[in-house]
């Protein structure tokens, strides 16, 4: 029984379990990660663009998102907005990911998937910072958490 389970874990783990029911990770792998940002102290810095220019998002948390996209061979297209606007974007499928000053006590947990908390991000100031993903996109969440564990661990 246990042997069967371990082999099942290895086989299925190898073919990318968990799979996203909504195909987010596949879309990211196809080249574009649509990320939303809400400014938060030194963690996420959003500079207001000149008219017609794309939003520029910097800061340690934004760098991590850029780094994740890079490992998947994708580039990040940023959108800025309030947390609620970002969560709306995640819900209606126009965003793949959202960052800001959200912590593991975030009230958005029933509308978006919330990653584990990371307190080692520069600028986190001891807060346990989380990223938001479309609800139940477990493949993306696993890939992202694995990346963050490697970067911050």
């Amino acid at each position: 029984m246990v042997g069967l389970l371990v082999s099942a874990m290895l086989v299925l783990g190898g073919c990318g379990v968990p799979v996203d029911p909504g195909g987010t990770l596949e879309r990211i792998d196809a080249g574009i990660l649509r990320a939303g940002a809400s400014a938060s102290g030194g963690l996420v810095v959003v500079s207001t663009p000149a008219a017609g220019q794309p939003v520029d998002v910097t800061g340690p948390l934004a760098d991590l998102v850029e780094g994740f996209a890079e490992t998947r061979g994708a580039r990040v297209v940023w959108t800025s907005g309030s947390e609620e606007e970002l969560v709306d974007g995640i819900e209606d499928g126009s965003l793949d990911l959202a960052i800001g000053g959200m912590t593991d006590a975030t009230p958005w947990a029933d509308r978006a998937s919330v990653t584990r908390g990371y307190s080692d991000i520069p600028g986190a100031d001891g807060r346990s910072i989380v990223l938001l993903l479309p609800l139940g996109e477990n493949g993306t969440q696993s890939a992202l958490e694995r990346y963050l564990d490697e970067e911050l661990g």
Partner: protein
Amino acid sequence: MERMGRTDLPPEQQEALRKAIRWEWFTVGYTIVTIALIALVVGGSQAMKTAWIEDMLSLIPQLAFLAALLLIRRPPSRTFPYGLHQVTETGHLIAGVALLAIGGSLAIESALGLVNAEHPAIGTVVLFGQTIWMGWLMVSVMAVTMIGPFFYGHAKSKLAPVLHNKVLYADADMAKADWTTTAASIIGVLGVGLGLWWLDGAAALFISLGIVWDGWRNTSMAVRDLLDQRALTVDSKKPHPLSDRIVQALNAQPWVRDAAVRVRDMGQVFHVEAFVVPHRGRVSVARIEAARAAIARMDWKMQDVVVIPVRELPAEADRPRDAPAA
């Protein structure tokens, strides 16, 4: 424990009761460990949450059995002239209603989750420096906890008929069916892993309907016993054979023209009212007393017995099914 109310337990029942108490304590311990283990991995899976709550609910009949034993050993008193045997059935009723109510609310929750297409979120954990998907931990924990109920379920279902204890019987019955819950939660989580988000809600719905079914069965069984339905076998499937044996034994007496009996199940022991129509319309106290003692000797469950001489048998009283109605 050697006595139950005014009932002296024969050695076989004493032994069975000792074993049943040991098994119930073991089960309570095992279930608490299971609940603690699942708490570590319950995550965003509705199926896991439902299975977890089901484990908590399974403690109720176990604790009801143990708590009832403290009370039913008391002898009858002026205040409770029939003893406290029906505490067992009261515990059974409480367990049944709890299962019914919580199972129902879980079923509604799972169904709503499916209708609203809520995708369960299951992330990762870091274990021994490795990032692994929490789903694998859920499946492992559930697979490990699947083993216990097989053993204690079968052990208890052997003891329940010996003790004629319906709470123990129901508890054993649920334990034997527990693997379906565990298997369903594993299928739900693996479904989520494969991107089939609805399998989690479907598994949760399956588990909660199982709880509702257990609740319904136990509640109706307990209510029927509390309403003094005629005594049935421990699985509540057919009339208890003792009723027929009592009437046959009475009918074999030369002074008895006809006999019938009302037997109610007090939880583990029976309360017997035997009606006899004596030949020539008269009978001595000594014969009544001898008949009463003879019935009490037939089985350990029957020590609260009355024999009532009557002119005509009450229509609702039990008589052997092949006998012509008087």
